[in-house]
Each structure stands twice: as C-alpha cells, then as structure tokens.
C-alpha cells in the first residue's frame, strides 16, 4: 500500500488525526521557543552544517582516526558492510560471551538492520528499555517517529497494552502510574542482562569516544550493569573533535524536544573494569549514498526528528504511513537511496513547503532533495505510463503559444489545459471534497485582447 492510501486511512479517523497533529505541533512550538532563545541559532546551524560537510568529505580519514583511538582505548572495533553483517557481528559477540539476555536502548540503526527479530531467532532475548520503544516492542510494531517512537499511541492505548502484557490495573491511564509499571518491569530486565546494546549519537574521531543522548538514563543503566557493552553506529555519526560536540548537543535537544539539553549526555570511552566494549560501524548503503552528489547532504542528519514534527503531511498521516524505518521528510529522501522502486511514492508525499529544511539543525536541503528524487524517479521509469504521457503532452502544448492560445468557455470548462496535469488520474480526486474553480466568462488573455487590443506578440 502506498503512502497516499495509508494516509487516507489514518485520516479517516479525523479526531485522532487532529490529536496526532496537535501533539506534534506542540513539540514543534517547544522547539521554536528553545531555538528563538538562542540569538546565534542560525549561525549555529550553519556551523553544524559545515562541520558535517567537512566530515563527510573526509570521512575515510576520520573513521580511521576514530578506529585507531578507540582501539587505543581498549575497545573492539568491527566494520559491517550491511545490515546482515551487522547482525552477525553482534550475534557473534553475544555468543562469545554466552549472552542470552540483552537490554537495548534506542537505536534507529538496529531498527534499520532489524536486529531484534534476528537475535530473537537465535534464541536471545532483546528488551528495548526506552519507554516508547518498549511500548511498541510489546505491540510488535515499528516506531512511528525517530525520537518519539510511540507518538501515535494515546495513554489509553498504553494502559490497555500494559494491562495485557504487564498486568497493570485495567483502564489505567495515569502516565505516572504507567511509567512506574514499565519501570518495575524493566528493572528485572536490567538486572538480568548480560549485555547492553546502545545506539550512538556522535562518535568523536579525536578521542575515539562515543556520545549517547537520552532522557531516561536507560542507556547508562544498561551499560553500567551489564559486563558487555555494544555500541552500534552508522558511519556518518563521526565528528572530528571533542570541541565540535557542543555545537551539536546544543542543537540536538532543542530541535528534538525543545529541551536545552538531553537529561543524559553519556560519554563512553573505555570498558568498565572487567567488562568489554564493542563498537560496530555500519555502512549499509551509506557510502553509496555519499557518492550521490545531489543527495549526500542527507547524511548530515543527526536524527533530531524536527522535520517530522514540523511536516504538515507527517503530522496528518502518521509515521507508519511511510512504510520505511525512518519516516517523514528525512526518511523520504533516504529511503529512495535504499530501494528506489519500493519507495518511489515517498518523495511525492510532500507539498514541498520547505518547512523541514528550515527547522533542520544541520540545514539539509530536504525539500530540494525531494524535488530532485522526483526527477530521478521519473527518469528511471517509475511513474505510471499515463502520467508520464500526460506530462509529455502538456510539455509540448506549453512550449509554444499556439495550442495554449485557444479561447472560449467550452475549452476551459473541459479544463483543457491546466490543471491538465490533473486530468490523467482524476479530477474526481480533486472534486471528492473540493469544488473546481468556477469558470469565468473570459480568460485573462481574452480580456486583455478585448480591452487593450491585441497584445505584443
């Protein structure tokens, strides 16, 4: 099912759509207040964007520097070319330490690699410890947002879920009570875990250390308790120096949730005494993406989610309507790089309003990339034949004044030209909930000819 269909079924429940829209708009407004409180906000975005551009242009150097430092710190470093290799590496590490129980804090990368189902198949229990992640894990569904994975659920939904899975009181909706229920449930999982897996927000080349930003402290709890710690990161997480970190931490939390900083900003540099620290660096299509001049900037993304919160389409269609691990505007420019045919609807799931590019803390030209992906999709033949044909015809008509200059109300009533582009698949789609524009007595050009005499040819 494509985005438009899934969006339509989401919107069918209008009250819930309004609630979803408002919940995310609230986050967008919090972000605005936080950003507007920093006088140098725009300069900070520019700086972050340039640091990322520099890093992406020298990625090989910084990755090697990072590896060297990390090894010096005593960590083990693994490289994975794709999701499969990543999963096998993690599995081998777990096997080596005879791990049966793992806690994991939020990581979009392991989502992307589908690590959980893979490990579960090998008989290993993986528990997501971020509250939102745990909720969707219990519901056996993917996250609908990269920062707020369960944003599509109301507290009533969570109450019902916890009643069923965690034996909490029936009908409970008090967030405090529900959080406490999750906390009790997770405590035993933490104590029981033999390994902790985390995602990575930033990897500092200069020091070989990793930075993980969370609000719940679950990443730290996991790492501190379990003897084995595994950090999985996409290779674009590198930043050159420790001094660059502040630029990003200032932008990240403000953009994500409107907080000045995440509650926990944890720096992992070495294994604890008696423990082991593993770092898995994953490519999975990233270096190929780096080679796409028009689209490489998407790799600057720091996964703050601001483009989702601001996107008027995302807010009204929900994260699951995108059908890709990362939904929303950034997902729509990343997913076509992974599978163009399967994701060819996503660059069209936008009005190109440009709000995403303006909130993005690293200034990714998201809406321009959506536009350019559309061109690629058409060139590679992923538009329907009728659509392609109608566009080609319109192009010919519009390239010369002759056919365009027909006059008369009949022609306009048939909407013979524009929105001619609308004709190929349906004025009925326009007309289902909207009136067509009223057809005036004369076109502007007819008026001009009549009132001003024939124009300047």
């Amino acid at each position, binding site marked *: 099912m494509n985005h438009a269909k899934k969006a339509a079924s989401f919107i069918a429940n209008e009250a819930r759509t309004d609630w979803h829209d408002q919940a995310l708009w609230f986050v967008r407004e919090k972000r605005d207040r936080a950003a507007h409180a920093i006088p140098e906000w725009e300069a900070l975005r520019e700086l972050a964007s340039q640091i990322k551009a520099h890093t992406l242009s020298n990625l090989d150097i910084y990755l090697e520097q990072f590896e060297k430092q990390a090894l010096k710190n005593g960590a083990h470093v693994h490289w994975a070319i794709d999701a499969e290799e990543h999963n096998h590496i993690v599995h081998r590490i777990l096997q080596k330490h005879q791990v049966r129980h793992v806690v994991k804090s939020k990581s979009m990368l392991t989502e992307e690699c589908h690590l959980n189902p893979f490990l579960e198949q090998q008989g290993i229990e993986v528990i997501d410890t971020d509250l939102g992640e745990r909720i969707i894990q219990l519901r056996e569904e993917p996250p609908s947002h990269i920062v707020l994975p369960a944003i599509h659920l109301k507290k009533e939904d969570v109450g019902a879920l916890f009643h069923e899975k965690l034996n909490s009181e029936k009908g409970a909706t008090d967030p405090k009570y529900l959080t406490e229920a999750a906390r009790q449930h997770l405590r035993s999982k933490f104590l029981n875990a033999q390994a902790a897996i985390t995602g990575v927000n930033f990897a500092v080349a200069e020091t070989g250390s990793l930075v993980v930003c969370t609000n719940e402290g679950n990443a730290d709890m996991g790492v501190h308790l379990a003897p084995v710690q595994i950090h999985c990161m996409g290779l674009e997480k590198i930043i050159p120096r420790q001094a660059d970190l502040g630029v990003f931490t200032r932008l990240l939390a403000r953009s994500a949730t409107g907080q000045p900083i995440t509650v926990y900003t944890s720096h992992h540099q070495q294994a604890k005494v008696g423990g082991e620290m593993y770092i898995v660096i994953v490519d999975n299509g990233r270096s190929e993406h780096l080679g796409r001049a028009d689209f490489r900037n998407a790799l600057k993304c720091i996964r703050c989610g601001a483009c989702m919160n601001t996107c008027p389409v995302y807010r009204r269609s929900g994260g699951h309507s995108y059908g890709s691990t990362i939904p929303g505007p950034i997902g729509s420019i990343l997913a076509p790089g992974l599978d163009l045919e399967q994701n060819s609807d996503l660059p069209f799931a936008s009005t190109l309003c440009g709000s995403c590019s303006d909130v993005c803390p690293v200034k990714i030209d998201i809406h321009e990339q959506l536009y350019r992906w559309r061109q690629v999709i058409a060139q590679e033949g992923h538009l329907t034949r009728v659509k392609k044909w109608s566009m080609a015809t319109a192009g010919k008509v519009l390239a010369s004044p002759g056919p365009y200059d027909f006059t008369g109300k009949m022609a306009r009533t048939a909407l013979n030209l*524009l929105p001619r*582009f609308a004709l190929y698949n349906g004025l009925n789609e326009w007309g289902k909930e909207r009136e067509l524009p009223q057809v005036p007595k004369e076109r502007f*050009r007819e008026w001009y000819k009549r009132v001003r005499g024939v124009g300047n040819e």
Partner: protein
Amino acid sequence: MKIALFIPCYVDQFYPQTGIATLELLEKLGCRVEYPMAQTCCGQPLANAGCEEDALPVYQHFTEVFGGYDYIVAPSGSCTYHVRHHYGVIEQTETVRRIRERTLDLTEFLLDVLKINQLGASFPHRVGLHQGCHGLRGLRLGKGSERTGEDFSKIKTLLQMVEGLELMDLDRPDECCGFGGTFAINEAAVSVKMGKDRISDHLRHSVEVVTGGDMSCLMHLEGIIRRQGHPLKVMHLAEILNSTL
C-alpha cells in the same frame, strides 16, 4: 523600464480578475506594462511531478518570450520561485541568467523595485493572510516561524498600507495549505485535511477574506470553502491592493 506581466496559466484561465488587478495596480503606480501574448506557463506543474525533462522546452519558451524585458512581474510567489530556483538546469546564457534575476513576485517588485510606501487602497474588512510556502520560504518574502531573527513580512507591509484593513492573527501563521500541485490529487486526503485545518484557523479568528500571494493555494482553499459552505472569501493580494472604496 520595460516591464512584462507574467500571468500564471491557472490565473489566466480561472482567475482573470487577479491578472487584471495586477495590471491595473502596476499602471496606477506609473508603470508601463506589457503582457506578451506568446506566454504560456513556467513549467512548474511538470517539474514538480518529476517531469523536468518535459518541462525543459517550456523553460526555453519562457526565456524566449521574456528575454527582452527589464523586469518580469508575476502575481505568484510560486511561479517566480520556480523560474529563479529551478531554471538552473537549462544552459545559463546571459538571457537566462538575467531572467532568473529579474523575475519578481508582485510584492518584491512593489517594495524592492518601486519602493512604494503608500498605496491609496482601501479595504475595510477582516483579512487573514495565507502565506504561500514558495513565496515565504523560497523567496524569503517574510521570516518563517522556523527561523530566528528579526520578524518581517513583505506582504504584511503592503497590507498595512491598505486603509481600513484589519489583519487578523492566526494560530499557525505559516503552515502549508496542502495544495502542492499534483500533491492535491495524488494525496487528496492529506491535501484536503491540511486545507480544512487552515480554513478553521481563519474561521476561529473571524476572518472574512483570506488573501495571499498565490492563487493556487487560494484555489485549493476556495474549493474546500465552497464545498463546505463557509462564510469566507478568497482574494488574491493584488485585488486587495488594487481596491478602492
């Protein structure tokens, strides 16, 4: 100063009053304006649908028609944005480069070229401003709510020159209306929902007339307003700036 009027294709066909108001307004302000009859469209509907290739001859045609003018003025932020930002794909001859610099939205032309500070217009109504995204975020006709820094809006500056006009505040002053060209059809459900939400915002704030710099947004909003029977009118900015008591 040789000024050409570019009237977007859908304005030509469905909203001639917008074209007429633009022309009359410019003439009132002392400009001599020509409407080249050979003009068609800027090509945006094709390119936004992914068919930039098919739009290239349209770009060439636009260039031929408008090559000889000092300024090309259009009552549309969206078409202007397209010419300025997306004509980079054709050969950048001197003419093309000049066209890309000299194609201006009506608001830009009034404020940045003519530098007007009064209008003599009068429109005693409660007006809500719909800021078209391409004008706002593409041409930077104002500061979007995403960005920090000094607030400004060229359209508001112009509306403030109109006597009797009461500009109403909105809860979401610059959210997209959901038109988006082919988006309005391919993603009809989201498109309409976005439009409905914009309209409710205007209704909540007792707006009588919704205005904006892009008739395409207003066409979409009007379609919903008429279907749902709301007591709201849409009028292009040019019509308001051109109105007298």
